[in-house]
């Protein structure tokens, strides 16, 4: 564990005076390794370590904890800060007619599953949701959302024969207005951020539909490329927040820090399982513990 490794590195230090630059450099070498092992982006780690270094220089060595623990505390607090600070960031969903939430992201990240989870979560908060299957490419994609919709008793609108995603989305808005659904959750096809044609499809959906909230759905096991992905989706489509999925596994989830640091948008939810109730709000301090653990 990081705490043990840092305590090893500082065995000879006694609780007196200030943390020397050498103490800090030694400690931060271990922290850097831990963050990289946790999949935090290489460049994000570099600037994070530099800023911790500046903060740690001149800190008095505290008597009650070991220097290793002290460095961890500085790192931990800074991580929590970067991940969004103490407490939960709440999602802003203005009333529109209907309010539109759109899920986007790479292939297989968990969008379809989280559309259903969000529908349940919203209904618990007195919304009247419907889901819209805009993935016209993946085999049985619409069926997947329909089956989930049946399981949770939420209506699902699926594309008609040869209908484009935009046309289906517009039709679902009309249906929502007619049937009184006050929020629509749009599930889109997985796509590479470097696939220009697919990104243009998303740009057009965003431009024409003006969703109130666009979530980038990201797999918690994503490695170094998370930054490129997040930046490109943010640049082309505009992202309001992230959903980090599959946190019921043992991936450290360092991508969370990279995305938050580079894109500057909050992580609003985490996915913790395959069932439709496995969604929770994102807690920065729990994530910091997970990344450093």
């Amino acid at each position, binding site marked *: 564990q990081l705490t043990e490794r840092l305590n090893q590195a500082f065995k000879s230090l006694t609780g007196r005076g200030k943390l020397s630059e050498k103490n800090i450099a030694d400690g931060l070498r271990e922290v850097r390794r831990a963050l*990289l092992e946790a999949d935090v982006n290489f460049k994000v780690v570099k600037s994070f370590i530099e800023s911790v270094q500046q903060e740690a220089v001149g800190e008095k060595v505290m008597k009650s904890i070991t220097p290793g623990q002290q460095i961890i505390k500085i790192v931990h607090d800074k991580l929590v800060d970067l991940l969004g600070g103490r407490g939960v960031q709440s999602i802003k969903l203005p009333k529109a007619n209907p309010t539109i939430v759109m899920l986007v992201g790479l*292939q*297989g990240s968990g969008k379809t599953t989280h559309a259903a989870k969000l529908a349940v979560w919203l209904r618990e908060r007195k919304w009247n949701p419907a889901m819209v299957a805009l993935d016209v490419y993946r*085999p049985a994609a619409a069926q*997947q959302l329909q089956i*989930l919709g049946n399981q949770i008793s939420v209506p699902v609108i699926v594309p008609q024969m040869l209908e484009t995603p935009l046309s289906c989305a517009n039709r679902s808005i009309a249906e929502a207005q007619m049937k009184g659904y006050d929020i629509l959750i749009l599930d889109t096809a997985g796509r590479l951020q470097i696939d220009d044609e697919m990104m243009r499809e998303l740009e057009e959906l965003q431009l024409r539909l003006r969703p109130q909230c666009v979530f980038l759905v990201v797999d918690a096991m994503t*490695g*170094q*490329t998370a930054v490129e992905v997040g930046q490109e989706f943010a640049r082309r489509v505009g992202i309001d927040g992230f959903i980090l999925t599959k946190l019921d596994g043992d991936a*450290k989830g360092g991508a969370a820090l990279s995305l938050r640091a580079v894109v500057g948008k909050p992580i609003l939810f985490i996915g913790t399982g395959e069932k439709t109730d496995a969604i929770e709000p994102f807690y920065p301090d729990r994530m910091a513990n997970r990344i450093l653990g």
Partner: protein
Amino acid sequence: ALPFGKKLTREDIELVEEILIGADVGVITTEEIIEELNEAVKNGEITGGDAISILEERLIDELGEPLRIDVRAKPHIILVVGVNGTGKTTTIGKLAHRFKNDGKKVLLAAGDTFRAAASEQLAVWAERVGVDMVMGQHSSDPAAVIFDAAKKAGAKDYDVLIADTAGRLHTKKNLMEELKKIVRVVGKAVEGAPHDTLLVIDATTGQNGLAQAEVFHSAIKLTGIIITKLDGTGKGGIAIAIRRKLGVPICAIGTGEKIDDFVDFSPQDYVKAMLE
């Protein structure tokens, strides 16, 4: 060019670090590789070339021989496994297409009886490729479905059976036990089955990919790895750590969502793509 007997320079090391870590090879494996390269340079085993070309050679060497599936048994049974969303079902469609083009009679088993529309998704692929598929009821025992498919493959003279399984996180003990049961059961249906067990890994996966491979390999012996989504910006470098630590060879890569976006693994091409 590196002068004989010298160490790698600070700049060389930083460059190699940035490339390897950036490709998800992992900081520990990267440190080991740099240490080994340094030793080789000091001992005079490497006497020239820039850091990138000696790294390229080392990585290609590291990856060893790719796995080429050798359809000896009849039926030759391939089990496809991995965590959620990595591309197993899609890859099976591509594999089936490959075998069919090689003149093999292929059967698919829809062994994901859990996830919404999983069997329906594989059925679309079966139809696209033009191969038969065995499926079970939703929530039926996947081992039973795969057992039935294996029996059918033997009885009806199929050359290859490819069995799809549900995505499962390696941390879920009950799901890993289910996988062990599938392996036991299919071994009872056909002697020596499964003849190949392929772990499908997403090229965007970070260090968790090594944990996935370790747990899957210790639960049910893997014979090969398929890295999907290499058409994206992920480099799949964790495969190098997996190969070093577990010795499991890479079989093929997925380069897109279409039926022929499937390429036999070439260490040279893979390493070149990683280093550019």
